[in-house]
């Protein structure tokens, strides 16, 4: 890989953190065949729950001795920073989690603690990013048209500190071309469609053909599910996403039916917000609760970013008046709080994939309205 003089200097800078970060970017560039490093506009760090990275991760973060050069944001933690007791989080866990967040603040990262950084920061088509968090990566590439590879938490930190990434994969236009045309059944649920597409495709990029337009919230759920069951970093939707017209329509074709895979159990928790809820989704939940007009009878947790929650304080208050809890900074997948339940109902293909693996709970699927009706014990 070709390095500019200023990049060579960083390698021998005498600051071990900066040198290691450069080594990481160069190693990734070598492995994936990059010719050079390119500047990125922002970095987003994932894998910061204490549950996930443990003491080794915590100590490594605390050992970092450099500041980020570009806007660098942080994914959800293992608990709501204010309401962790209400979630049933142990004090020992809380202390370690706070140390992780302080270490990240120490390198200049912003602890927005959300998997939806695209709601808080304007990113534009064609911009290069170094994001970790598979659901945010696929959203940025597919729905916005920005360019990021599937970074790990550590490589995102390296990019934040150096301000660059190796130029390979999603940063190069021709690597973003679709390989397979995916025909969606008319009544398919977008999250379930993403779940199935991710499981079927190995490293192929899909171009979706649907009978109707999807909202950005639906595309968010579709992409998050696809990135959880597969390796996808991007998808295109005919007539809808920003880059679908730039490439020729693939010859290979598959069809996705509207059936919902059976994940059946009797839910004792309903959890929405994987990825974190948007303003529109919060409003849709409130509307459904108002229609049913009854308090929830099962534990119901919503997850959104602190910023969206504060911007929609009235909506959140009205939702909580129905007995729902609206948490920030965390989610049902990264927090150990979910583990005390038996069966969790979700509208997310990503949660469906990770809850059984990481939190050892059973799962049931429904769309947003079906989930809220389940919360209120209302027949669908």
């Amino acid at each position, binding site marked *: 890989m070709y390095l500019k003089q200023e990049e060579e200097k960083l390698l021998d800078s005498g600051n071990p953190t900066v040198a290691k970060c450069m080594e990481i970017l160069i190693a990734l560039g070598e*492995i994936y065949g990059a010719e050079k490093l390119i500047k990125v506009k922002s970095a987003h760090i994932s894998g910061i729950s204490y549950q996930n990275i443990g003491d*080794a991760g915590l100590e490594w973060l605390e050992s970092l001795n450099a500041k980020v050069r570009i806007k660098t944001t942080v994914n959800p933690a293992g608990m709501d920073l204010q309401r962790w007791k209400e979630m049933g989080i142990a004090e020992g866990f809380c202390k370690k989690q706070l140390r992780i967040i302080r270490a990240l603040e120490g390198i200049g990262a912003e602890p927005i603690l959300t998997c939806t950084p695209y709601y808080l920061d304007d990113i534009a088509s064609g911009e290069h990013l170094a994001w970790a968090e598979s659901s945010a990566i696929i959203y940025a590439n597919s729905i916005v048209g920005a360019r990021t590879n599937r970074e*790990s938490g550590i490589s995102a930190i390296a990019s934040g500190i150096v301000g660059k990434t190796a130029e390979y994969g999603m940063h190069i236009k021709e690597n973003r071309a679709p390989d397979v045309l995916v025909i969606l059944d008319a009544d398919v649920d977008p999250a379930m469609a993403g779940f199935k597409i991710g499981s079927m495709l190995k490293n192929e990029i899909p171009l979706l053909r649907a009978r109707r337009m999807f909202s950005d919230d639906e595309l968010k759920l579709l992409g998050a599910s696809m990135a959880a069951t597969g390796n996808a970093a991007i998808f295109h939707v005919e007539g809808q996403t920003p880059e679908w017209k730039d490439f020729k329509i693939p010859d290979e074709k598959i069809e996705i039916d509207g059936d919902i895979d059976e994940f059946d159990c009797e839910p004792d928790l309903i959890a929405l917000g994987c990825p974190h809820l948007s303003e529109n989704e919060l409003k849709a939940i409130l509307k459904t609760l108002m229609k049913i007009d009854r308090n929830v009878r099962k534990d119901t947790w919503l997850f959104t970013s602190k910023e969206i929650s504060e911007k929609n304080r009235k909506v959140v208050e009205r939702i909580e008046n129905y007995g729902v809890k609206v948490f920030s900074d965390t989610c049902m997948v990264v927090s150990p709080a979910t583990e005390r339940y038996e069966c969790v109902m979700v509208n997310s293909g990503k949660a469906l994939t990770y809850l059984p693996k990481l939190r050892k709970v059973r799962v049931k699927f429904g769309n947003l309205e079906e989930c809220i009706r389940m919360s209120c014990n209302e027949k669908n």
Partner: protein
Amino acid sequence: MRKIKGRAISRGEAEGEVIISHKNFSFLGDVDVETGIVVAEDSDISGKSISGKIFIFPYGRGSTVGSYSLLSMKKNGVSPAGIINVESEAVVAVGAIISSIPLIDKLEKNPFGVFRDGDFIKIRGEYVIY
């Protein structure tokens, strides 16, 4: 003394006895990070220790958290001294760099044909010396 050239992914110096696995490896789950003993039942080196050795395996696999698992092993004093891969991937590469464990790949000769368990070898930058 003979030497083979490769590509230094995590540059450094290491030496030790060779241990070879012909299977792809994840430091998250395949090995006990407290003892350095391989616990994956389907591994061809199950029950053996990789601590302090030059660990040769084809390719890394699995979750990105595996990078931190390698760091845990290093902190516990039971990490491999060095790693040789047929071809490196991101998780093991990043883990080796943050743990300062030398890692080299794409050797000019097939490492499975040249080395045997128990051989004493050295990694020096982009060279393996034996």
